[in-house]
């Protein structure tokens, strides 16, 4: 587990850091996707998660759904290309789970990867995580005038 400025990034996940999403390749070959602890923090309390229909093909970095916060909307970008396999019904009912347990019960969706080998090379994992997160936090600080804390 990497902890960067108080935000946890489990080492066994891949990340699309700039879109605040994580992905885990599961034992059945499918992938689970969620929002990072940093992404959940900077977004604020989630009110609702709406996803595209199950069965839809989604290209890498395209929207797989949207998250609603108070007065703010954010698009959820797919870290890999795939076919939407399922949505976390618990999160549909209680979106605050994403804030409380972003890497556990707060996962968002499952995808059937369609080009994992190619897409995985574009994700951040392992020893690359701290540097990529530091760079992203510096960008956030530049945009908003302060580093998330």
């Amino acid at each position, binding site marked *: 587990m990497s902890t960067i400025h108080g935000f946890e990034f489990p080492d066994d996940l891949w990340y699309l850091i700039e879109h605040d999403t994580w992905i885990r390749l599961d034992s059945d070959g499918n992938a689970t996707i969620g929002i990072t602890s940093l992404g959940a923090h900077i977004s604020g309390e989630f009110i609702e998660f*709406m996803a*595209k*229909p199950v069965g839809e093909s989604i290209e890498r970095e*395209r*929207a797989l*759904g*949207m998250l*609603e916060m108070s*007065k*703010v*909307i*954010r*698009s959820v970008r797919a870290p890999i290309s795939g076919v939407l396999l399922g949505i976390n019904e618990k999160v549909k009912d209680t979106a605050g789970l994403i804030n409380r347990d972003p890497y556990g019960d707060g996962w968002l969706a499952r995808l059937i990867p369609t080009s994992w080998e190619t897409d995985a090379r574009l994700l951040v994992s392992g020893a690359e995580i701290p540097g990529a997160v530091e760079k992203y936090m510096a960008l956030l600080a530049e945009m908003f005038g302060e580093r998330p804390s």
Partner: protein
Amino acid sequence: MKTRLAILLWAVDPSAPHLCATPFFYAAAAAAMEVEVEVHFAGRSVLLLMQGAAASLYGAGDQATSIYDHMQQATRFGARLYACSDALEAQSVDRALLIPELTGIAGAAAFAGRVLDPEWATLVF
């Protein structure tokens, strides 16, 4: 699932700012899912398109996010804004003073076309 949404602003009016944020929030929510979104301004709603007008308006209980902020959130996600030419004329709006986010001019026929097209969902505020 439909992937196109046209929103008509007809009763949304700067004199009732508490009604102005909602349509743009709906537009942003749909556009964030990469739904193609158009917002058509008719009647007095075209007054929101004048530079500075929406920036000075706030919804109920929210002094932090202006109506213009809501409009910009929607356009950042790709929503397109269209003004009715007759409404602009009726409200004596100078086209040179419209906000840069405005995509173009589209009248009643354009929105009616969206209503009649089964590929489009429509909402009227």
